[in-house]
């Protein structure tokens, strides 16, 4: 097992950042307003093939195992790894030292159901039934506001802390008078009353920003990804915009002909790459205070299946990027391809929750004990350090 070592300069900076966060119980984040430290969580639904996104090109068995799925091109990121050739913006983030790569990562979930896998990723546990981001909001002293891009609040954001959802619409708005009367009508239905109040608030923020080219028209996965990313960037960048946004990009379940340098999965990775660039361009001034987590429920089989695709696997790849990130490096352990989990999947050598926990600690300055007790209970103490700062 290889361990990617942070260099000395990074270690020092990491230690400094951690110290600063705990000194006197305040932090950089707390010194400013609640929504200044932007966090975006991107959920890739359907299980992205992590070995296609971050290619372990130097592994002796790589070509043998992947066969037609083996990728020839890509961008060298050291340690024997390459980024997929369509991830051109991620390569720029990498060169700008704004991208951290975590290979061979998985949540604690060890079965292969998308639905349970996504629930685990979003709840941070098999037994808890609310979202870990919502629990993070609950333990945060300054309570950033949050939004799920889409019609409903995704599980990762659900829970006792107030949160909302938003997507661009096409019909004219009802009058304020109608909304007021509806509020009165919902007096006896607290659930509807609360939901409507949150919707009205987010709509007001959205109305205050330039909503050009944000139609809901079709145009393939690329267009849908871009629209989602643009909606998130516009909301986050608004003067009274939220500090946390969650977006879901689906369609990663590549069971058939996923392709290699080109093809179906390559196109999707290209669309993801473009969406991430939209976040940076849309956030502009706030980008230096932004961290973006890109997560998926699990990885896919190392070998191709019988139809040129991959089936549900275990470990995959996670990205952390943003102007606030101390990037340009790989983190975690790398198990190699000599031994496979259950003779089919990449061995889960790292825990995705550890990455999330570190981001909450270092980016939002959340108390580590609260994180261990409330947000990710039972995760254990090992984690990553010095990812933000």
């Amino acid at each position: 097992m290889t361990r990617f070592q942070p260099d000395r300069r990074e270690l020092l900076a990491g230690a400094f950042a951690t110290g600063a966060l705990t000194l006197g119980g305040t932090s950089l984040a707390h010194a400013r307003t609640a929504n200044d430290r932007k966090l975006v969580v991107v959920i890739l639904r359907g299980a992205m093939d992590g070995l296609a996104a971050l290619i372990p090109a130097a592994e002796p068995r790589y070509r043998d195992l992947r066969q037609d799925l083996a990728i020839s091109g890509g961008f060298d990121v050291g340690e024997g790894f390459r980024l997929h050739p369509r991830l051109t913006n991620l390569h720029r983030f990498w060169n700008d030292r704004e991208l951290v790569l975590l290979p061979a990562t998985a949540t604690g979930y060890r079965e292969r159901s998308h639905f349970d896998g996504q629930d685990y990723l979003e709840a941070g546990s098999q037994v808890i039934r609310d979202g870990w981001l919502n629990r993070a909001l609950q333990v945060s002293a300054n309570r950033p506001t949050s939004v799920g891009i889409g019609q409903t609040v995704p599980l990762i954001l659900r829970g006792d802390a107030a949160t909302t959802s938003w997507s661009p619409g096409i019909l004219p708005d009802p009058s304020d008078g109608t909304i007021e009367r509806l509020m009165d009508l919902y007096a006896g239905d607290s659930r509807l009353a609360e939901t409507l109040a949150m919707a009205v608030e987010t709509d007001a923020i959205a109305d205050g920003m330039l909503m050009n080219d944000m139609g809901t028209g079709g145009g393939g996965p690329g267009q849908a990804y871009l629209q989602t990313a643009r909606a998130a960037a516009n909301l986050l960048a608004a003067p009274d915009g939220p500090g946390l946004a969650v977006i879901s990009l689906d369609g990663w379940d590549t069971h058939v002909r996923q392709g290699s340098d080109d093809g179906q999965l390559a196109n999707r990775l290209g669309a993801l790459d473009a969406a991430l660039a939209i976040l940076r361009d849309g956030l502009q001034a706030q980008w230096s205070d932004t961290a973006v987590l890109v997560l998926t429920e699990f990885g896919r089989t190392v070998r191709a299946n019988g139809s040129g695709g991959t089936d549900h696997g275990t470990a995959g790849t996670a990205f952390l990027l943003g102007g606030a990130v101390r990037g340009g490096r790989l983190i975690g352990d790398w198990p190699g391809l000599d031994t496979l989990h259950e003779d089919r999947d990449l061995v889960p050598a790292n825990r995705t929750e550890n990455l999330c926990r570190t981001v909450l600690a270092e980016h939002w300055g959340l108390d580590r004990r609260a994180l261990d007790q409330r947000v990710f209970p039972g995760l254990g103490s090992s984690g990553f350090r010095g990812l933000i700062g």
Partner: protein
Amino acid sequence: MSRIETAIAVTRFGIGAQPGELAAIDGHGRDWLVDQIGRIDAIDRTGLRDARESIVYFRQEYQPRLAAIQNGTAENPGTARDELGRILRSGSAAHIAARTELALRTGTGFSERWIRFWSNHFSVAITSPPMALLAPTHELEAIRPNAFGRFEDLLIAAELHPAMLFYLDNAQSVGPNSRPGRRRGRGLNENLAREILELHTLGVDGGYSQDDIVSLAKLLTGWTIGNEQMRHSDDQIGRTVFDGRIHEPGAQTLLGQRFGGTARDQAPDALRMLARRPQTATFIATKLARHFIADTPDAVDIAHIRARFIATDGDLAALAQAVIAAPGAFTPEPRKFKTPEEYLVSAFRALNITQLRPRALGGSLRALGQIPFRAPSPAGWPDTESEWGGPDALMKRLDFANELARRAGANARPRERGPQILGSRLQGGTALAIAAAESAEQGLTLLLMSPEFLRR
């Protein structure tokens, strides 16, 4: 029989009341439900392609145009691309219009809801160009004719329909030890097998292993769609065929049971076994109770439905009886938040709208967030308020209700309409709010956005 039971029958188990419908049923709500069991209203199939026609149409119209664009021989690539989009949209738009129009005019709303439940249970969706044409045929051909038969027959019809074989990749799955498997390195695709166990029969906690998934995938090999490359006969093209040449030879063990029948019988035998497992009864009963009664159904309701499933070996007509006879079936408070499509249909029915321009229908479904045949995953559409009742979703419903009311204009008449469409379920507070509204249009918006209309 009380009035409230009639209102519940039509709004909770049916598809929403048209003005006049509650009065006609009067106090006989339960009988009205029971009479519908086994009765399936005929859909107008004019202009609808079946699965085989869809596949042939795709091969004859779509593929040559796409090839022309790709190899640069298309005269006008821009127009040709638009044409491709039109071909794909034409398939689903006609099916959506036909099934929506049926829902808007039918007198058997419970039967339609029952069909839609099973269609969603065996969800297939538009995830690729061929599926744009194929997905809508599944409900029509596999679900509708079997919705009141035996669960095992519905299961076999649903899994072996071309749309499912294509959607979950079984059409491409090849037995690793079959001749094509050994010679050309093609092999197993476990997608359909996994979802059958997880989503269609046992449920994710139903006690199966990765080995069981592989065994079922092997049993399913050979079930594919007739095509030219494999030299199937003209009659087989575009239809489900069993092709023994790609079937995995030999017997397989699934859940401890050995399946060694003739190659062609293996998958149907395995599906029949899965249909009879008690875990399947539990899984189906829970989903039915969640869909018709409450997001978090009471254990007694699940137990009641489950017992009927086991006692009748999955007789779906008996199961429909069990759902409406469950202890919690007629609790007065509405415990279900309508899905966007249920909401749209009930709102149109409330306004006596039975004809829609396809563009208006498509736009409304898109705005509300649920386009038929586009469920986000093989699990189908979600079925709880936490999934559908988000702040933005509520806002989109309000925009939609507001627009309907604006178009209704003088025809809004919310004070008469409230009791007509909600009967005894109309709450005093809503009636007061409507009476005090500043216009009839606003009153109608409030009626369509009232808690008792958003829920069922």
